[in-house]
């Protein structure tokens, strides 16, 4: 699974209310509508600027806060190809894998906005093409890699009818 995109950088503790504000997410199941407001409070132009496959790059504790899956779904529907962070909040991490949004734990401190990145989830390698350097990636637990490679937990259940991990 090789992913390629440009970096959009954010700080530490990006919570789920920043990813998609409560004032939008309770009203609708239309994720394309929510995607228009993704990261709005941190970067009002992000939703317009992000190109399909681009990466959200952040510091530690990305996705802290609520359990709402609208957060990874809004990112996915905005075209985000993966989220790279030093660490993730637990529920967001599970939700991202379950909904098919790749999440990558790595040292993001040297990545700059606009850097072109290539990630290989299986081999656990991240290449910063712009800077010409490789960054080691924490491998996904095999149980999560299995869910992600099935296309998310809904697809996994559709295939097996229960947990087959």
């Amino acid at each position: 699974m090789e992913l390629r995109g440009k970096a959009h950088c954010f700080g530490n503790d990006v919570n789920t209310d920043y990813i998609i504000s409560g004032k939008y997410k309770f009203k609708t199941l239309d994720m394309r509508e929510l995607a228009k407001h993704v990261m709005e409070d941190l970067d009002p132009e992000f939703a317009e600027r992000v190109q399909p496959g681009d990466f959200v790059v952040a510091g530690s504790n990305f996705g802290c806060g609520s359990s709402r899956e609208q957060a990874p779904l809004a990112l996915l529907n905005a075209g985000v190809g993966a989220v790279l962070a030093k660490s993730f909040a637990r529920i967001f991490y599970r939700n991202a894998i379950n909904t098919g949004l790749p999440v990558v734990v790595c040292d993001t401190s040297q990545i700059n906005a606009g850097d072109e990145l290539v990630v290989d989830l299986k081999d656990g390698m991240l290449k910063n093409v712009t800077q010409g350097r490789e960054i080691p990636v924490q491998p996904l637990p095999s149980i999560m890699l299995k869910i992600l490679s099935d296309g998310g937990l809904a697809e996994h259940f559709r295939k097996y009818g229960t947990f087959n991990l």
Partner: protein
Amino acid sequence: MGKTIAEKILSKKSGQNVFANDIVVADVDFRMGQDGTSPLAIRAYQAMKGEGICSPERAALVIDHSAPSPLEGVSALHTLMREFAQGKGIRLYDIGEGVCHQLIPEKGHVGPGSLVVGADSHTCTYGALNAFATGVGSTDLAAALISGKMWFKVPETIKFICHGRLPLGVYSKDLILFLINQVTADGVTYMAAEYTGEAISQLSVDARFTISNMAIEMGAKVGLMEADDKVMEWVRAHSDNKFETVKADADAEYFAVKEYDVSDLTPYVAKPHRVDNGVPVGDVAGTPIQQAVLGTCTNGRLEDLTIAAQVLEGRKIHPDVRFIVAPASRQIYLDAMDAGVLKTLVQAGAAVVTPGCGPCVGTHNGVPSDGENVISTANRNFKGRMANSNAFIYLASPATVAASAVKGEITDPREFL
């Protein structure tokens, strides 16, 4: 080798002898969703081609986040939930019943040793009853509804030992805001928290819920406590189910043990826009406020309303402050009426709204205006949390919120006690 509470519950529910970092698929005792998360869970259930719910009597859906519905779109989602619940034989607690995290314990669905998943991050609240209860997303909830199971990484545990007794005017809310400030918002990420010590034993069960409720604000998967006589009495008064209490072994292995003497703790306030941004109330005393909120799954219980009423007895809230009160459940609403607590609050100037989450999550019932300061008993003060990213939210105990509502500025409640 000894085990933590988390290791014991997950061993029992998976039928395996497991320790921290093992991965298990375990049987879940109860599953819960609310109106912010259930619609997506229903959609995931459909995508999974679910053909029925495993033990539907061990699940509940709760309409509390936007209750009653403020918008047409929300009404459609509520209808989706009602139809799904009826079709699948799942219990649905409709508007006015209360906040999910009050209802699930109050209706007797959870007790010592239970394994519970809820599609709401504050599901960790039930840890105060010695239950392994954790928040999940909608897709996980759908999988748990279909299979009756969930996969878990067995968490490592950080034990918090709180020595001493909380002084007058200092409450469990102050204690948990202090602890979160000490370990930060991701200090316990991926791990279990165990809260123990004299300061915890001294607390009522109502007050303990406040601490376990906010375990997620230090990143924890669960906020566990042992079940003492107070817990057993509380559980027996609310449930006919049989529960087995779970104690940590003396030789259990902890990731870390943190000890605090809380005898000299002062009231604490978390400043905008981070829950771990806590300071002693004196540091922010005098900050003007325009709105005060008493309620939520953190502090909307009878004891919380009673403490606020003690501060407000014979007093009026400041003319420049809106004071919004949301009891955590219909039962608490009734109990507060019977005790005269509600009358005191309303006479002081409170606007009482339907039991539910509205003001805390910004769906309705008190969205602040640009530039306003709010003091709230809720558990989150993120920018935009109350639906206005230009407002500023301070988190505090019911006593501090009530005292601040009277003076129109952040106030040390000990002046009133």
